[in-house]
């Protein structure tokens, strides 16, 4: 486990602790019958998250002395072929999160069908650096997929709020 991973875990635990404490405080105002589960889940989470925060602070302080050798990773963590958390990978994650937010903004403005075409086209050209021909075929395929499910099966797609097309 790298130092960056310990810091990330600490930040995540601290954020979730704040959420769990707020969740529990809000639950105290509920009707008695609606309160049991939220108070129990929120209260227990708060206590356990506090323990994790303390543990991660201690781990961070001992990082230079004690390596993460005794630390058991969970079943899902860092699979074969993947690297651990690095500044480069975090920046890449932020960049791709930006693409997703951009896609949502397009959906918000133009609706899903147009946004999907714009997003797939620009992503394939700018990020994947695919040829114009491949990009055009891909955009057409996405449009066809959305049309088939929207028209024949009758799925409703989100329409643009400001520019419904």
């Amino acid at each position, binding site marked *: 486990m790298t130092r960056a*991973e310990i810091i990330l875990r600490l930040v995540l635990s601290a954020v979730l602790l704040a959420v769990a404490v707020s969740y529990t405080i809000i639950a105290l105002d509920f009707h008695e019958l609606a309160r049991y589960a939220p108070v129990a889940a929120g209260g*227990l989470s708060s206590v356990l998250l506090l323990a994790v925060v303390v543990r991660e602070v201690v781990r961070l302080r001992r990082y230079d002395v004690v390596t993460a050798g005794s630390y058991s990773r*969970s*079943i*899902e963590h860092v699979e074969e072929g*993947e690297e651990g958390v690095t500044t480069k990978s975090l920046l890449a*994650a932020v960049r791709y999160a930006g693409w997703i937010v951009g896609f949502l903004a397009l959906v918000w403005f133009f609706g899903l069908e147009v946004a999907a075409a714009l997003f797939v086209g620009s992503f394939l050209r700018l990020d994947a650096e695919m040829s114009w021909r491949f990009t055009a075929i891909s955009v057409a395929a996405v449009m066809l997929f959305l049309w088939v499910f929207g028209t024949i099966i009758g799925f409703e797609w989100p329409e643009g709020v400001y520019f419904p097309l």
Partner: protein
Amino acid sequence: MADAALSALQNLATAELILHLLLGITIGLVIGLLPGLGGVVGMSLFLPFLFGMDPFVGMAMLVGFAAVGQTSDTYPSVLLGVPGSAGSQATILDGYALARQGQAARALGASFSASMIGGVFGAIALLAVITVARPLVQALGSPELFMLTVLGIATVGVLVRGDALLGLLSALIGIMIGTIGGAPATPEYRYTFDSLYLWDGVPLVAVAMGLFALPEVLTLLVHRIRIAGRAELEDGLFEGFRETLRHKGLVLRSSLLGTGIGAVPGMGGSVVDWMAYGVAQQTARDNSQFGRGDIRGVIAPESANNAKEGGTLMPTLILGIPGSGTSAVLLGGLILMGLTPGPSMLAENLDVTLTVVWALVLANIAATTVCFFLSKPISRITLIPAQILAPFLLVLFFAATYQSTEHWGDILSVIAIGLVGFAMKLVGWPRAPALIGFVLAANLERYLHLSISRYQYEWMTFPAVLTIGALVVLMATGGPIFRYYQSSGDREKGTAS
């Protein structure tokens, strides 16, 4: 009974019924391929067409759809690491790990063959217990159902390797998300922040997509890799089939478990795959590869997942109590076709009930055959580089997510939960327990409330409650304790050598 069963088989052997069965299978296959669209959403699409339809024809189509949905939902689970439906969540752990090792075809081969055996097992079990199941199902009250729900959450202790604290926390976070919306016992809307969207809670599709789909796509993009780490796919389709036959004991145990849990109303399909996975891991002599690509981690949940369909139909047909979301839609379909689910399905409509059983058998065999032969071309998706695959997946995920309630909130929920899910993946927090906690939160609260309302605290001394309680303790602590002693033993061996 044997005459009636034979007569029902003859009823089914008509061109019209077979055609409708195949129609249901075809549509189910397409829908099942789309992450998050299987199960309830997909089946709901059928309801408008069922009004006034001949019961035999309608049931054949619905059962065909339900059976293939539980089989083809394995594709997204294994190939993309995204649950195709609620019942294929546990398959991700080892199925996706195998796909990343270039063994997608082997995982799919094992999965489909296990699904078929499980599905046929469930149908035979339905036939066998159809006349004796009623008193058994009625014997389960809210305290026992509450304890069975707790048992589902206790599988966390088995599933999480290493840090059980994080596993428990993850489950609690899932429960917290699950308590958003209306309280089961009183007209109070919790954590809605004046948003109408949150009144019904966060949809399962949004939570599953957020926890698994977005983090996986982001990870693939960040590391610029294919789903399959290797450029070549191993030719393991028939090897997977042979693996299933090799682990026939596991298939039968998981099928039995799936049928049993499926028969409990309200437990439904969301937990059965996890339980089967947990039991398989717990009882395996060498479980060191579970979560890293152990074929048994695919066989167990898939057998149980399909077997549960037969079990779920028991309370649905016999008592008129839907055992899961899909059986609730099936129940609606029965009513639309002019049938009355309940005891009458064993008397005046026994022929329809038995047709359902045979349709289930045939649909499972046909669905498996179709999926089996489509596996090789479909599994090639894992060889496509992330940069090309990702934009299509993102469009698909958001389009599928939007279908759950057709509200913008679905998409925003996926983003919010997806960011938390990605952070959890980065720092090694297990995400699967969060999904279990979320799925079981409503039942947990409802059954606890009913138990206390009816029995105060006396229910805690019920023999069935105590028995399941002992199982809960065993499930929650057995795994970590076993692994502790196993690692102690390994350390001692290492020191000695």
